[in-house]
């Protein structure tokens, strides 16, 4: 059975794909960014924080093969989405949903890389 952090990773990846697709649909349809999309994005951030906390367990024992790479991914995984949300604060236009698409795809990729370097 996969470890807890691995299971959380796949939940994060699946959820990130969902958020990215919904945000992309909003952008493509040129709709104003709905409030629920922000809520989904912040839910994704909460999952990423849980994944990062679970990822701290990798430091018990021998630790990850490349500590600096692992720590870099760990920090990036929780920082990308808040920075993206801050950059579109107060802007509800459809292109702002495109920024969420990019950020959600990025954190999904980071979560996979985090798992690979653990």
């Amino acid at each position, binding site marked *: 059975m996969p470890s807890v952090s691995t299971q959380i990773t796949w939940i994060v990846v699946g959820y990130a794909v969902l958020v990215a697709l919904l945000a992309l649909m909003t*952008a493509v349809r040129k709709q104003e960014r709905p409030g629920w999309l922000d809520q989904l994005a912040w839910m994704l951030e909460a999952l990423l924080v849980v994944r990062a906390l679970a990822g701290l367990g990798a430091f018990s024992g021998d630790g990850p093969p*490349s500590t*600096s*790479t692992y720590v*870099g991914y760990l920090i*990036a995984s929780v920082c*990308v989405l808040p*920075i*993206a949300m801050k*950059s*579109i604060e107060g*802007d509800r*236009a*459809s*292109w*702002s949903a*495109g*920024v969420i*698409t*990019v*950020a959600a795809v*990025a954190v999904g990729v980071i979560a996979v890389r985090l798992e690979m370097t653990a």
Partner: protein
Amino acid sequence: MSDATSTTPRSGPHQVLLAFYALFTLAAGARSLVQLTTQYDEAPVAYWLSLAAAVTYALGWYAIREASVGRTGFASVMLWIELGGVLTVGTLSLAVREWFPDASVWSDYGIGYGFVPAVLPIAGLIWLRRQQRSHAVG
């Protein structure tokens, strides 16, 4: 402040470009710094080129931000430099394999990043052309 600057909408496709450039500045910068400091001897050329890519993305981010408010001069230079870098490094990585025992960000035209590094400057140049047209008309 010029008229062009004051009438430029805050929202637009440049926001997505800026998000990509910020991400690639972070990704290429962190990757190159880790590699240069922990495994320099393995592939110094590739690692320095990754750092150059990170600097290019940071300048590209600034250039697009400036272009979004009507100052397109720097972006029209920077995006061509970036495209030239991706094509040059991508071609060299295929033609002179021994220079790249480890990959750089632009190796094989950015295959390690889903070819986004090759698409990004082209998308930027298309947006810039439209931006220049809209300011010429407006």
